[in-house]
């Protein structure tokens, strides 16, 4: 398998960030079954060096239900994981949710993300409604920086990318992805997390990768007394 091309990887990051940012509609599901979405899945499956990780995603999207029912189920899974419905069986999508000391109140990571985005000439989309430490924002920013780095090799983009990974993603993304894999009840978002983990395997530090590996298989719903 050849390494991912930058364009494939950037597209995949953008796609994954979108999947973590909002629920799929019935039209989306239809598209993944027999429309542009299917082409997208085909593309990722064939072009990514971890393309086989796309298959479980495709499989879940192509269950035997009408697209509207599949979308409804996935929306329920999304709410369970990312809207807090699942409690500790969820996967909080913000960096600040994973800071033990913060209790959701330490906004340092938000400041830092805003600062970094500002250097790139970016800020939060007013439509997103999320703080900039949201997984969707950080993954999309990563894809953007990687694209800029290719287009402008002498620019500061790789430095910014390294900062994003070192100061943010490295600290919490493995745990977030692990929570998705452990807590998703029907497998779709677990599969997306698996793909994201595979895609970022080389980008995240070894410490993060080890932590990710160590966390896999944990059952957060139970602990030894």
């Amino acid at each position, binding site marked *: 398998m050849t390494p991912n091309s930058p364009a494939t990887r950037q597209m995949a990051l953008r796609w994954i960030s979108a999947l973590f940012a909002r629920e799929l509609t019935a039209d989306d599901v239809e598209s993944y079954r027999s429309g542009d979405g299917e082409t997208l899945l085909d593309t990722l499956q064939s072009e990514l060096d971890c393309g086989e990780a796309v298959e479980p995603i495709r499989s879940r999207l192509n269950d035997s239900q009408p697209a509207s029912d599949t979308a409804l189920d996935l929306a329920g899974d999304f709410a369970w994981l990312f809207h*807090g419905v699942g409690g500790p069986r969820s996967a909080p999508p913000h960096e600040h949710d994973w800071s033990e000391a913060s209790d959701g109140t330490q906004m340092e990571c938000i400041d830092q993300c805003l600062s970094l985005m500002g250097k790139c000439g970016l800020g939060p989309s007013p439509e997103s409604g999320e703080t900039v430490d949201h997984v969707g924002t950080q993954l999309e920013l990563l894809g953007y920086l990687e694209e800029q780095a290719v287009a402008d090799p002498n620019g500061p983009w790789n430095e910014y990318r390294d900062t994003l990974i070192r100061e943010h993603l490295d600290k919490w993304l493995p745990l977030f992805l692990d929570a998705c894999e452990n807590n998703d009840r029907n497998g779709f978002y677990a599969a997306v997390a698996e793909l994201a983990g595979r895609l970022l395997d080389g980008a995240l530090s070894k410490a993060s990768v080890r932590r990710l590996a160590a966390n896999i298989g944990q059952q957060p719903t139970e602990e030894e007394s």
Partner: protein
Amino acid sequence: MKDPKTNHELTRREFMGYTAAAGVAASLFGPSMLGTAQAAAPATNAGSCATFWGICKLQAKNGQVVKAEPFAHDSSVNEMTTNMPGFVHSPARIKYPMVRKGFLKDGYKSDTSERGKGEFVRVSWDKAAELIADNLKRVIKTYGQDAVYATPSGWYNLGKVHAAGACTSRLSNLMGGFVRAMGDYSTGATQVIMPHVLGNMEVYSRQTSWPVILDNSKVVVFWGGNPMNTLRISWPAPTHKGIEYLKELKKRGTRLIFIDPTRSESVQELGGEWIAPKPNTDVAMMLGVAYTIQEKGLTDQTFLEDYTTGFDKFLPYLMGKSDGQPKTPEWAESVCGVPAKTIRDLADTIAKNRSMLFSGWGIQRADHGEQPHWMLVTLACMLGQIGLPGGGFSIGHMYSNQGTPFADAPSVPGMSGGKTPSTAPAPIPTARNIDMLLNPGKTIDYNGRKVTYPDIKMLYNGFSNSHTRQPQRESAVRAWKKPECIVVHEMFWTPTARMADIVLPISTMAECADITTSEDGRFIIPLKPCIEPQYESKPTYDAFAFVADKLGIGDKYTEGKTGEQWLESFYNQAVADGKRKGIGMPSFKEFWDKGKALEFKVPEKSQSWVRYSDYREDPLLEPLGTPSGKIEIYSKTIEKMGYDDCKAYPSWIEPAEWLGSEKAKAYPLHMLTSHPRHRLHSQNNHVQALRKLYTVKDREPIWISTEDAKARGIKDGDVVRVYNERGSVLAGAMVTDNIRSGVVRLCEGGWYDPVEPGNPKSLCAYGSANVLTLDIGSSKLAQAVVGNTSLVQIEKYTGKLPAVSVFEAPKSAQ
């Protein structure tokens, strides 16, 4: 793989790259989360906020609350106030309108067993409000007005505009009226009995000013109650003056006597003497005290003759002539466990000194809860000090900073609930709501009349964490599966929100423009939001107005005003009231722009105000609101009701469960469900920084005596299973000598966290006391909640420990 060239409009290559992907397949990728750059400097903002636990200035940075600075005039700032950022920005926050998945698909015919299992999907406000409106209209048309129950709202957002109770009533009344609740969970028994005895509810009435007590009381008895905990909160915004006065009481060396099965935080912090009766036996102990006073000739006969009626009918009971059992201290000891000598000494002390008998509400949150405060008043009548400075009784001082001298200040009106239509359904006693859901058509007695339960098809919960507040969780879970539709307005994923079909996200106080006053009227406080409503939440009034609009009554609901316009109109009405009283106030614009509290003077006459002094001075010109115009130790009104569980005079009646009952053989520990120190009932339980202060291995702490723990092999810090036939919870053992043997304390308000969601008998992983409590009415008179009447057993928990799942997501492994 299909050939994209032949099957699809887009090609693989067109997807490639970040930019291309976003541009070409926008429908699949959705809008970007990246936008244009903001200003370099972080945006900061400040606002003023008031909660039921404190007033503060909130600092925000980049749209997030980062710091709470307490109000300068708050004399006892607590950690609930300083942790407001954690309250607002909690992982438990409800971000978007949510609908239960099955309900969205199948509507009111959905499988309601799905409730509580976390099956929600996000919808738009339009969709959610349409679902609410459609179901309200359908239910009313199909079943009638009395098929909708509006659960009562009390505590929640503090403010005049976004008052959840008024906003709910406003909607209800415009829709013809829903079934509503009578009474409340705090004072349900006393507020029904006291009008028969004193002519008013007493619990929420103005009380003798603290300076009078400081200057005149030689002895202050705290019969039940834990004011150093309960005075941390109040329903007007607190400046915590009550705590300040309590500390002053200690400083002055006033003799303080606490009668409580626990050596509560108040006993520990204020010092004083501790007498520990068995729970629910206060009436027996009071009777022992009363017997001693009568026996020793210390009864104030003149007071009884001039200001009371019916002592002559009570006396035979006290002396045992009517039932053969004199209520001697020895008899009292056999019931309450307090030595007869202690009872005699107490009688002697309070009769020979200027004594103020304070009492808490916990002792009336029990089976036959009407009796303790009736007996307390009777005791105070025998002492004859009612209406004298520093003497008598008070059922108010331990709550909401009652007794703090009032300022001469303009009155600030609030949102009106509107007029209840004459055709509106009859209300039901609030604590019987689960009985109502489970038994439609059943008729119960209530305060001299009959109440027949309607058949409820829809619940409209405009704010209350019912699934933590209501006793006997197993019944509540079963009951909440019956209605066809349940609507909940909430800020957080409470156990109640998790049981809903439609959940509307509500903004916290930090996000709402409003106005409020301090507990003593000394301050009028602008509540200026420092952040926007988070995610898609709406302030309470706006949320109800949105629903009203979908119902086609939006104009009537709002009267054409936004929340901000109501706020200004309330302020301007206060200005007009101020003019009438000769008190000047700045214009609304000046008030709002400055963002500072207005302060008003406390007059001297307010400092020296004594409750019932006017009645004492002239009982004929200032009669009480009772049938006789006097304090009724014997009530002919109650006599006519003929209830077998509430006689016409105060009496000791064995509760359904207590340490002297047969059931104590199987469940030998009496569980008290006191008010928690670091919460307002269930509010703030979701704040992790606060939970760190009190939880034991992530569980609600349970006080257990050293003796009881030792007998069960339980050590401090162990996780224990607390159980009875109604259910079981896990809790964290706090082994202590600060509680009477045979008694445990598991504070109310812990969020229900079923290990098996939806299973009524599920173990609660966190320690919600109301899993174990008993859901019966206190008596036919008040039908009040009996949260302090339950027996339990405890064992060390040795199984695999389920994670606490109700609050938020797992944290990092740091």
